[in-house]
């Protein structure tokens, strides 16, 4: 069984965000038809109704070295014909291993920027890292600051209404949202250099923010306005970093914090145990909300790499009895499902499939969670409502599980009728330490 938690091909994290840019025309240099088919299939399923362009590849093409010439003429043709704002060149495993001379591509054709985005998936490892690479590659192309800096750059995929809600709060303390990436337009990225502060709301945009600090001198803060503690801490961090009026900041932060607390008080998850596994980076924020709503989460399994931006998040979770497992062994996770009365699983497709087999209510992280807001009071309410709705369907999940287990000798696999000899959750946590 795979040690790497099952996520998509890591590179897809980047391809996906680039395809969602309306004025970009990404070229995907695939490793082969199997690779390209996978990316095209899932992209057309849930990313965008638009063509995916690739240069043809084969062993003959690689051997002859004709790939680069074809790529160059393709780039020029596409730029002249369609004049998009940017043509990102997504270079996956094989083209990056072969080492095409991407430096020799024209940087600019008319108004079109041609930007190389290195995505050798065997080195990128995670979805999250690929998203970081996109922001980093795109922003690296920009000239340094052009005008007086103001406002906060939000970095990370969030619900469409989140930037508006956050902007409203920031205006109360004397600043605003400057731009939000990954966004649908090149202009969203261009605006970044004019912001005064970077706020990566998911803990994996470390390369992007570090390099922007280096090149553009733009500071950054950690965390996100999620949950009781998170909301307060985030608002005060913005205030401190931008030297805003501290009394006002304190008042607003307390107000927003109280709103979140009120929402969570009405939606208690007391006494419920959750298993959470994600690969998007949102999972840190989700677990925060679950815990603050009263739930027990023994561990958080994430396919995001260890990241300096996640350190505080990790410490906060640890204090509340939740261990962060980077790349937990999938087989162990499935085993852990059987020994504790988990009330709900929020995880990857395979993990949820096993949970459903056992009659445990579960939802696929990406489909259900990544499409919700989590920020501030409104987001907290949304997410916890969804979770409560899922847990409430226990009877239905049980009924189906029992029906399909009838002919099986493994009926006792459900925790409800099986006394554990070994606490597999403890075992998992102990053996998957950093």
């Amino acid at each position, binding site marked *: 069984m795979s040690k*790497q938690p099952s996520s*998509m*091909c890591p590179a897809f994290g980047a391809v996906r965000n680039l395809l969602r840019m309306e004025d970009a025309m990404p070229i995907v240099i695939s490793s*082969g038809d199997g690779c390209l*088919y996978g990316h095209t299939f899932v992209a057309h399923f849930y990313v965008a109704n638009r063509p995916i362009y690739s240069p043809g590849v084969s062993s003959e*093409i690689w051997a002859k070295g004709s790939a680069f010439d074809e790529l160059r003429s393709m780039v020029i043709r596409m730029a002249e014909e369609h004049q998009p704002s940017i043509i990102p060149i997504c270079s996956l495993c094989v083209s990056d291993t072969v080492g095409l001379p991407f430096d020799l591509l024209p940087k600019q054709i008319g108004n079109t920027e041609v930007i190389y985005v290195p995505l050798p998936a*065997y080195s990128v490892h995670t979805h999250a890292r690929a998203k970081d690479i996109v922001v980093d590659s795109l922003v690296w192309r920009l000239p340094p600051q052009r005008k007086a800096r103001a406002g906060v750059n939000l970095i990370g995929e969030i619900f469409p209404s989140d930037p508006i809600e956050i902007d409203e709060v920031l205006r109360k303390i004397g600043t605003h949202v400057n731009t939000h990436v990954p966004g649908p337009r090149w202009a969203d990225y261009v605006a970044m250099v004019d912001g005064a502060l970077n706020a990566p709301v998911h803990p994996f945009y470390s390369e992007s923010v570090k390099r922007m600090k280096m090149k553009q001198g733009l500071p950054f803060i950690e965390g996100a306005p999620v949950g009781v503690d998170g909301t307060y801490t985030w608002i005060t961090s913005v205030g401190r970093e931008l030297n805003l009026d501290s009394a006002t900041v304190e008042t607003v932060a307390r107000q927003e914090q109280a709103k979140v607390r009120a929402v969570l008080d009405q939606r208690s998850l007391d006494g419920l145990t959750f298993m959470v596994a994600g690969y998007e980076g949102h999972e840190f924020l989700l677990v925060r909300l679950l815990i603050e709503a009263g739930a027990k989460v023994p561990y958080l399994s994430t396919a995001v790499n260890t990241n300096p931006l996640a350190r505080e998040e990790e410490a906060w979770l640890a204090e509340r009895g939740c261990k962060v497992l980077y790349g937990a062994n999938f087989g162990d996770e499935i085993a852990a499902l059987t020994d504790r009365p988990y009330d709900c699983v929020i995880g990857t497709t395979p993990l949820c499939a096993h949970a459903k087999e056992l009659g445990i209510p579960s939802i696929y992280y990406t489909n259900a969670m990544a499409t919700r807001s989590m920020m501030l009071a409104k987001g907290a309410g949304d997410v916890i409502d969804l979770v409560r709705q899922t847990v409430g369907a226990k009877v239905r999940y049980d009924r189906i599980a029992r029906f399909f287990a009838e002919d099986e000798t493994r009926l006792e696999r459900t925790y409800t009728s099986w006394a554990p000899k070994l606490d597999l959750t403890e075992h998992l946590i102990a053996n998957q330490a950093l």
Partner: protein
Amino acid sequence: MPVRENIQEKELPSDVVNTPIRKQVTDLDHAGGDTGAMQVFASLSDANVVLDGPVGCHVMPAVAVINYTDSVPYLQNVTCSELSETEVTLAGTLGVLKEKVGEATVAGRQVFIVSTPVSELIGATWTTEHAHIPGSAVFFDSHSLDDDEWKSRDRALLFLWQNRDHFVRRADAPPRLPKLRPSVNIIGPTYGNFNSYSDLAEIKRLVAGIGADINLVYPFEAASGDTKHLADADASIVMYAEYGRSLAREVGLPTFFAPIGLEPTTQFLRGLGKALGLEAQADAFIRLEKKTTLAAWHDIWRSTHSDFFANAPVAVIAPPTYKDGLTYYMGEELGLPILYSAYRTGPESAPNEEVRKALADASPSPMVVFGSINERMIIAQEKMPSLFFQCSFPGAVVRRATGTPFVGYAGAVWLLQCICEALFDTLFANLPTSAAPPARATSTTRDTMLAAPESVSTSGKGQNSVINWTDEAKALNEKTLKRVPFFVRVSVAKKLRAEAEALARERGSDVDAGIIAELTARYSPRK
């Protein structure tokens, strides 16, 4: 489409790479060799498959895509060597591969190692082929840099046969029953094959119907140890012409292809009956089918539904089996005009841009486009009035209920039913009147009469009940109507006229080209 028996040399996939050298690919429509091979091996009940590649080469086909082609949460018997930069640039894949193969080697399971583009690129193929890997694992070079999924499936099936003596039947496998009746092999499907669950169920029904037994459904309902028993049958049925032919030829039994359409199915049953010495049973079954399964077909055929067929044009873009089968069934047997048809995958695959142009320029537009998500996008992007019916991957779909076959008599009925439903949908979408609630009366009849100017010439634009149409508007209207399937053209014409004149009245103008353009955007290609 005649039923074909036995496999000719020229029908086998060629030894040369079968993916043409392409300069540019837009919206690729087929998977690569590693995926095809993985889908063959993973179909065997006792297989553990190790893909020699980075994690993406595993999760894309075996977790992400499989969930939307086969509605399987993920393939539990597939893993990969998880190559990282160390292996790619320095160490080679053998070390990690051995480790993974070791994990996958458990009693009663046969391990298959499959190469991927990355391992092939760094030359790991040769090393793996010649290395000593403990256990009984076998290595399959999937030619993934060059071959597509179809050729790879064909090669992988042949590979299984060539290695049949290597594979061991599990001790706990049910004993093979003594042969009481003539039996057949069903070769194919594998995972990742559009609609195969229903097609397989129908072929099994047909085989049982003529009184024959199923020897093996290979590889989908078999274990690797069963491979050598392919020879025990009296005939083979290849489910899809795209793959399995090489295996069928090597096994050497009379071979039949799953039929699409009425006549092909009848020929198939008679041919199979003859090969198995069950001619009388085959004839009796055909007679019984006419009174049961096909009674529905005959009823629909005799209804007014079929009156529309000659004016209900369709387009078919699919892999060879479905493209040829659907074109024959709909075009020759039902009499629907086939406006355009093309192979969606394989060496003769039509480039996406060619398909786009053919579909967008078709006049009239097809009533239904049978295709993949690529065609679905073309319909949306070119604003075609056509309905979409999926008959190919790529494109997320659930086809696990076994009542949607394309092959056999049941397939003929199911397809006919779908075509009729498409007719009804098209009619409904183009009904000329949809006044619910009806428009309000704004004045009495008498006042309406008095308010109306006397003639068009003195009317003030658009005030009269007779609205003037400019020449440009008429021309554009004509052009638009030509794109609409003939049998609803009257309805569409009425609807357009009513809408155009209502708009003209509202604006106090003639019906001009602007109004028509506005209303017909939904029927017109993007410009």
